[in-house]
């Protein structure tokens, strides 16, 4: 019988290089799942939020109910949200994505709507005077001017989604949250800390990436300040 190896894994240390070496594939798969769940839910959320915000802008009476509904959704704690969707989606990745979409709606609708409302009336009138139809006005004037506010919402929604994906561990689809959950049950300190740190790194990287995109697609906001 050989003696157990005396490395940081055996000693259950928080920081452990051997953990990174031996579980590289596990970590990689978890990060990929984490990114997939985040990207899918944020993009779906954006696809739903954009028409909602445009409709709420066009028809004033729709704004109140839309904002009230999304606020109510945002108030429901994540664990309860996933649980309420269980009868509809079962233990699946779709359940986690659906829950995250409902969360991102509040932030996205509110910010896009604020951006659309902030478009100066003179600008709209000028575009109308130039013969712009309602669709061309929306696509080429109103939406571009609403971009800074919309991007701010998108950044907050994305960072929140990265953090909330971990709760998906309750149904087995939590990306890095799965590793945290498993690490908790086995008191595996290195795994919990590594997964947690990776999660924060993903959130920060996503935020910086979106900030870069925002600068690229709204060059006029910098020109005005300079």
């Amino acid at each position, binding site marked *: 019988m050989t003696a157990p190896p005396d490395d940081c894994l055996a000693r259950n240390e928080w920081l452990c290089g051997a953990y990174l070496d031996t579980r590289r594939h596990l970590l990689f798969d978890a990060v990929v799942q984490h990114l997939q769940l985040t990207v899918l839910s944020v993009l779906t959320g954006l696809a739903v939020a954009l028409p909602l915000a445009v409709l709420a802008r066009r028809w004033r009476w729709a704004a109140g109910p839309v904002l009230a509904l999304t606020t109510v959704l945002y108030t429901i704690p994540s664990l309860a949200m996933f649980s309420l969707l269980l009868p509809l989606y079962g233990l699946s990745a779709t359940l986690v994505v659906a829950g995250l979409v409902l969360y991102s709606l509040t932030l996205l609708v509110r910010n896009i709507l604020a951006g659309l409302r902030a478009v100066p009336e003179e600008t709209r009138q000028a575009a109308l005077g130039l013969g712009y139809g309602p669709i061309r006005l929306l696509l080429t004037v109103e939406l571009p001017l609403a971009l800074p506010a919309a991007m701010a919402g998108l950044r907050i929604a994305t960072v929140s989604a990265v953090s909330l994906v971990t709760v998906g561990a309750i149904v087995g689809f939590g990306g890095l*949250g799965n590793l945290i959950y498993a690490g908790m049950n086995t008191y595996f300190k290195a795994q919990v800390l590594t997964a947690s740190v990776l999660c924060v790194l993903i959130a920060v990287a996503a935020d910086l990436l979106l900030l870069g995109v925002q600068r690229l697609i709204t060059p006029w906001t910098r020109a005005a300040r300079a």
Partner: protein
Amino acid sequence: MDQGGPGVNTLTAAWDWLTDPAHWPGADGIGHRLLQHLVLTVVCLAVSCLIALPVALVLGHLGKGGALAVNISNVGRAVPTFAVLVLLLLTPVGRWGEGPTVVALVLFAVPPLLTNAYVGVREVDRNVVQAARGMGMTGPQLLFHVELPLSLPLVMNGVRIAAVQLVATATIAALAGGGGLGRIITAGFNLASTPQVVAGAVLVAVFALLVEGVFEIVERLAPAWARGGR
């Protein structure tokens, strides 16, 4: 599956679970979990306010530490609640019953309180502050008689965000073995009982909406000046 469809069936089953008198008493009963959740939320909200509000008001009054006070909310959003709960559970704090839950709750309630109170004090009209100084008000008088009353709407908004955050965090605490209504959900998952999971989720959702509702009512009842110009 019968004619009612899965949605209707589950809701009926969840309702039956909720109204079953056997599920209410005892340490794992709904009554005890509800009380735990309420106590955790209220106590941690009070503690967080005691920690965050004096710091934020003084910093706002002095106009110092603004970058920290504003950015701490963004940091709080990027750190997963669940990860913090598990990390705390594996530290010595974890051996102390509800320790990890209480520490995590306070950690996540402090950022919105800090940010909103700081911004609130800084956004008080500088002319009003100048006028108060001109009348010979001292620093503390200025803070308590001018800046605090005028920043109350934003301060209260921070308390409201913190309260909603506390209810959500207390729910997730169940994943890491903490008490509260989330335990009904996690127990439901362990038993593979969808009705119990849904029943627990409904309880949590109603609890969260009630907390939000209390703040809404307080805001409506408040005198006009305390509601702000919005």
